[in-house]
């Protein structure tokens, strides 16, 4: 029983990290149909900049804020310099561009920072919380809470606000969006800023648990991508569910079956789900009539 609970905690902790990354994918995808493979780099930057600024003497909250703002600015720059000019390009081209951006950011990070592994103190100390016989780090609660807050925010944004609707409209039909007066460039800028900011936030929250280094981005991107697709790309509900699900599957597999093939288990589940639900768990089927 306590074993199960411990596995659950482990899964939730890791799953929350994945979910945060997956949520980051959602906005850019909703605005442009682009899966931004540089999303993982935003997470990396969130951690690295915070560490850097903190090490340079800034108090932690300020350092974190700086990291989020700087990363959001970088997101905007990537959009302006790399995504906007390639408007209308086929999906594979856009994938390569975002992977290029990811490689670039990683290359820059190793020059600006270093190749060492870093961390900074957990927000609420390291004394584990004990529930029955299982334990959980206070920082895990921060990450889980962060994922939930971001989820609720995004969900409200997309379902309750006209601007959120405009974001969806932009990806659905950019031409029509312009015709109804939506400044699609602004929508894209906003989306990249938000996505990058959420990515950085993920990095800030997770680093005390996962540690960070210039090359951790790609791992986050992969898991976040997998989570988002499992849940159904574009839907915040899907991102949340997908992220947590992958975390839980990994933890349960590691706990009860084999830790060696726990990631395999996650991908097998993804393949199975997609076999029966080609749009993921919550993905909306696009209605295109012929």
């Amino acid at each position, binding site marked *: 029983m306590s074993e199960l609970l411990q596995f659950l905690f482990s899964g939730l902790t890791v799953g929350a990290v994945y979910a945060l990354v997956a949520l980051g994918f959602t906005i850019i995808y909703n605005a442009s149909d682009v899966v931004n493979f540089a999303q993982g780099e935003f997470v990396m930057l969130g951690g690295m900049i915070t560490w850097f600024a903190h090490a340079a003497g800034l108090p932690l909250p300020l350092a974190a804020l700086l990291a989020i703002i700087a990363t959001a600015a970088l997101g905007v720059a990537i959009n302006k310099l790399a995504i906007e000019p390639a408007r209308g390009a086929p999906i594979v081209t856009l994938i390569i561009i975002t992977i290029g951006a990811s490689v670039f950011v990683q290359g820059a990070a190793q020059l600006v920072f270093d190749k060492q592994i870093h961390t900074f103190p957990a927000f609420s100390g390291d004394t584990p919380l004990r529930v029955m016989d299982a334990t959980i780090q206070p920082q895990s609660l921060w990450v889980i809470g962060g994922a939930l807050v971001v989820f609720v925010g995004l969900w409200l944004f997309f379902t309750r606000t006209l601007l959120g609707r405009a974001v969806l*409209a932009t990806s659905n039909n950019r031409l029509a969006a312009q015709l*109804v007066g939506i400044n699609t460039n602004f929508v894209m800028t906003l989306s990249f800023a938000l996505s990058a900011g959420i990515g950085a936030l993920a990095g800030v929250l997770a680093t005390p648990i996962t540690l960070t280094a210039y090359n951790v981005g790609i791992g986050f991107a992969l898991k976040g991508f997998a989570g988002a697709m499992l849940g159904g790309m574009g839907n915040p509900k899907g991102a949340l569910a997908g992220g947590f699900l992958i975390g839980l599957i990994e933890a349960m597999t590691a706990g009860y079956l084999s830790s060696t093939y726990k990631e395999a288990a996650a991908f097998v589940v993804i393949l199975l789900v997609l076999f029966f639900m080609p749009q993921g768990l919550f993905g909306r089927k696009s*209605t295109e009539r012929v």
Partner: protein
Amino acid sequence: MLTVEGLRSRYGRIEVLHGIDLHVDSGEIVTVVGANGAGKTTLLRCLSGVQPVSGGAITFRGEPLTPVPAYRRLARGLAQSPEGRQIFTNLTVEENLRLGAFLYNDERVDKDMEDAFQMFPILRDKRNLAAGGLSGGQQQMLAMARALMGRPSCLLLDEPSMGLAPIIVAQIFDVVRGLKALGVTVLLVEQNAFGALKIADRGYVMETGQITMQGPAEELIADPRIREAYLGI
């Protein structure tokens, strides 16, 4: 109200508009007819700003329109119901209409939407369905209604009657006439040249990227060349 002078436009290296001159006066209905591939859609795309212009000038209400980005043109009063309908397929019918009034956030939005539903009752029945599930004609109605939600002072219509049942075609033409009564200017591109010329004040004939004929609508309807080439009579 709207003046086009020597307008040129190209797709890549191929020029498809070779210097178009036309004007639409305030409160007028002007129609453009022409064969497939003449460049009518391209012309409208230039006017709404989604197609780059390579020469000539467009003035709207006395101001040059060319430097205004597409998304600002609706705020200036220029709305378009585009070819191919271009609705937001993943959003609901109601969301499509609401986005048509993206620029506004007042009580009139609800009233306008009510008007739209009045005009096309079928849209009311489908208001909460994804617009992509609508039938072709229903989508065409939605495109038209969405353009009206933008409160245009000048409306660009690209084949609004395409795919509509005869009873609705008649209704669309009535709506256009009604818009005129409300003071809205309309530039109408139609394959149903007969219907279009009947409600229009003036008309232009376009052939391979050039205006080849123009005049009051009654004159054009009577012109034997037009009757033979476009009306099939």
